[in-house]
């Protein structure tokens, strides 16, 4: 498990996104199959390519969703906090939930002490040409599970699953 704690302000988003991105590489779908390291490169190559794409898409989805969650905390959760020293924090836990050798999940728990909200209220895009209100839609679309536990502290849990079966199937001749 990796834990990170930063002040609830947009400046810290970049640090948090980097941690989540790196955590996906550690806990998400592996790019290389170490068990096949002794096989000839040609046999492994197409599968490696499919795995690489699976891993990249995984990181992309999780980083996109997490960024929206972080934005919401800094912009809405801690809205109206003008005294910087009184600013609440954003605590992030990232860990792997192993399923088997070929699949697993990455879980991200984001905890804050700001305003609460009800994610069930924001299920659809507000407009055909939306300028805001897309954050929760992006989170829901890119993650497999989203849970919210009202506090304070409030915890938003994001879960993204992966399975090598989908990538190896695509790569098989």
């Amino acid at each position: 498990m990796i834990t990170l704690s930063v002040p609830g302000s947009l400046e810290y988003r970049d640090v948090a996104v980097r941690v989540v991105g790196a955590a996906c590489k550690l806990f998400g779908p592996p790019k290389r199959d170490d068990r096949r390291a002794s096989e000839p490169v040609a046999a492994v190559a197409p599968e490696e390519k499919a795995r690489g794409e699976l891993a990249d898409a995984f990181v992309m989805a999780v980083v996109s969703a997490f960024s929206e969650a972080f934005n919401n905390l800094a912009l809405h959760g801690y809205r109206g906090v003008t005294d910087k020293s009184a600013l609440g924090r954003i605590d992030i836990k990232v860990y792997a939930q192993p399923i088997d050798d070929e699949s697993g999940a990455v879980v991200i728990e984001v905890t804050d002490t700001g305003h609460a909200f009800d994610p069930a209220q924001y299920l659809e895009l507000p407009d055909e040409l939306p300028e805001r209100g897309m954050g929760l839609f992006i989170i829901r679309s890119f993650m497999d599970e989203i849970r919210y536990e009202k506090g304070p502290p409030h915890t938003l849990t994001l879960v993204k699953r992966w399975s090598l079966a989908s990538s190896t199937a695509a790569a098989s001749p």
Partner: protein
Amino acid sequence: MGHTRSDNGEETLVSIDGTLDALTAPELRPTLDAIVAEGRKNVMLDLSSLRLIDSSGVGALVSLLKRVRAYGGEVRISGLRDQPLAIFKLLQLNRVFPGQPGA
């Protein structure tokens, strides 16, 4: 995020690189506002060096699109790839923003 604007006759080209998000989108706003204030009708966004975008970044571009269309202009995008492409597809904006002229 970095961005450049260049005017070539009727066309205005805006190239955006790096990360366009809640933190950096405000830096882009004055450039977009000026384009609207000047009533530029043919705006091209080069997003080939854009690495990451979030809903705030998308919001800034959609706002530009709406305002330029309101006076009869058009905003095109080119070079969309990787994460920004995934976000545009998810929000079905790749249909809303036309691509290169003639493409």
